[in-house]
């Protein structure tokens, strides 16, 4: 039996980082219009920035997916399906209006205020999902997804309503950007720093809780008898995961299924232990989104006239994966709610 020692934790982190670095390195060979090859010195900076942004968003969604699945005891939980991403996107969009900006300007920096707005949206969605989908302390898996669908639909309608009344904000990307997110290099340096800080801090909090998050898969009474203050753990972990999701969504818009697929791929590689799952799913999320963004650039460069948002590709890949998971969990006799 291998001990989960500090050295082992560092080894897992290093291996995860190496996996990401290898794929991110390959993505460097793909340019903004799909052309492949070694970048020139002028291109290198731009490509690195885009890859790092995609990696940051992917890492955040992958890590948040692990925590949502552990806390909600549901392998189908994902920030996108739960409506967390759309809640964050909506508030992130609302932030762009003058009133919100001036209000928040009194409280902090401009970029931070967008993160804060996105977080409020994400936290609001989590609260609604939690309240409506839980019955006697248990979260019904199908209800959870239904509530997520409804939250997504309501958020989308509010977005379109605001968009219709106020008119499109220059550079907001229009209604399409709410439907599928993408990585674009128009993000300001300040926004990048804010997002990286929030994701970094949130990730460390989630990693610190990883040992206890294993226990969260048990029933409440079992978790309590193992010395875990389960309600406190749930809230801290949910806040951390929602913060991390919000930080990512504020710079990319909602990108679906990364938070669903990555934890499951990581499970195949490292097992169910959250201490190993978290770094693995983070690296896989970062690598997956960097690669998917590079693939989008290729598709856009060769066939399409406009840039293809990366959310299109992740949804195309993630949708069938979600159906496969749903089919599997039904075959097992709905263990998704009874873990």
């Amino acid at each position, binding site marked *: 039996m291998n001990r989960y020692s500090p050295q082992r934790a560092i080894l897992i982190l290093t291996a995860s980082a190496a996996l990401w670095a290898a794929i991110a390195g390959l993505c460097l060979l793909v340019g903004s219009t799909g052309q492949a090859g070694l970048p020139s010195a002028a291109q290198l900076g731009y490509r690195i920035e885009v890859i790092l942004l995609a990696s940051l968003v992917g890492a955040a969604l992958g890590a948040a997916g692990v925590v949502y699945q552990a806390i909600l005891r549901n392998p189908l939980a994902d920030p996108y399906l739960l409506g967390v991403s759309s809640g964050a996107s909506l508030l992130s969009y609302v932030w762009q209006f003058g009133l919100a900006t001036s209000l928040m300007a009194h409280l902090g920096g401009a970029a931070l205020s967008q993160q804060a707005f996105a977080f409020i949206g994400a936290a609001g969605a989590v609260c609604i999902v939690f309240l409506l989908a839980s019955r006697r302390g248990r979260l019904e898996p199908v209800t959870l997804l239904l509530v997520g669908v409804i939250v997504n639909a309501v958020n989308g309608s509010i977005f379109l309503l605001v968009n219709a009344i106020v008119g499109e904000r220059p550079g907001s990307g229009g209604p399409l950007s709410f439907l599928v997110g993408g990585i674009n290099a128009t993000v300001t340096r300040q926004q990048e720093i804010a997002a990286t800080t929030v994701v970094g801090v949130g990730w460390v909090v989630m990693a610190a809780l990883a040992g206890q998050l294993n226990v969260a898969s048990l029933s409440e009474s079992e978790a*309590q*008898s193992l010395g875990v203050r389960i309600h406190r753990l749930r809230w801290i972990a949910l806040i951390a995961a929602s913060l991390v999701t919000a930080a990512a969504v504020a710079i990319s818009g909602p990108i679906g299924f990364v938070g669903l697929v990555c934890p499951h791929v990581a499970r195949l590689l490292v097992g169910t232990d959250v201490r190993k799952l978290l770094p693995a799913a983070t690296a896989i999320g970062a690598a997956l989104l960097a690669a998917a963004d590079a693939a989008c650039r290729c598709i856009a460069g060769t066939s399409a006239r406009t840039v293809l948002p990366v959310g299109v590709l992740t949804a195309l890949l993630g949708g069938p994966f979600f159906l496969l998971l749903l089919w599997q969990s039904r075959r097992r006799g709905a263990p998704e709610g009874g873990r």
Partner: protein
Amino acid sequence: MNTLLFAREVTFAYAQRPVLNNVQLALSEGEVLMLLGPNGSGKSTLIRILLGQLRCSGAVVWEGRSLRSWKRRELARRVAYLPQNPTCEPDQRVIDVLRLGRAPYLSAFGIESVRDVRVVEDVARQLELTELFDRRMEELSGGQRQRVFVGRCLVQEPRTLLLDEPSTFLDLRHQVEVCQLLQNLAHQQGIGVLMALHDLNLASAFADRLILLDQGTVAAEGSPARVLDADLLSRLYGVKMLRVDARDGRTVLLPDINLHQ
């Protein structure tokens, strides 16, 4: 024998519905104490109260200290609990389930000490689980799964085990195996075992002492021979019972169907 647990005047109600009324019990080191009683008599509620998961009036004292003065993590190192339906992920490996028992000892980031690993390995050896380490929980038989869950409890290095109907979903052989295992743990290692059980004959065979609950009150307490009184059980369970005392002193109870008809 040191007293591990002492509960006095335990009274509890869900909303306005009384569940337990003035219950008193004590558990010593190395003792197997079983709670019997019909459905709804308050067995599971009493166990949850003893764990501090439900607030009651009265006093619960673990190892000489009031329950309220124990930190949750501290108590988890002394008292382990196995519910009627223990949970695990179907694809979780046996080793990962056992490891969960070290949760009260882990530091931040879930870092394990050398001792954590040694305890898990010792318990696995003791319960003959070492060979199953890499098996997924969904691949195990009911008896093996229950052994893993008991193992998870022992990994906590408890002085007391609280179990809520641990043999409910097992066939006869596995029921006996689990009860034998728990009795050995009590008699050989001095662990106090308190469990709720439905099977009167298992209780008769393996308990050192019984408490019979009826609508939240203690109807009888003492040795199996004393508590398993056919008239009392007939009244409590609403089924006429026949008691057969074997020559070796053991007691067997049967529903007396012929007489009932």
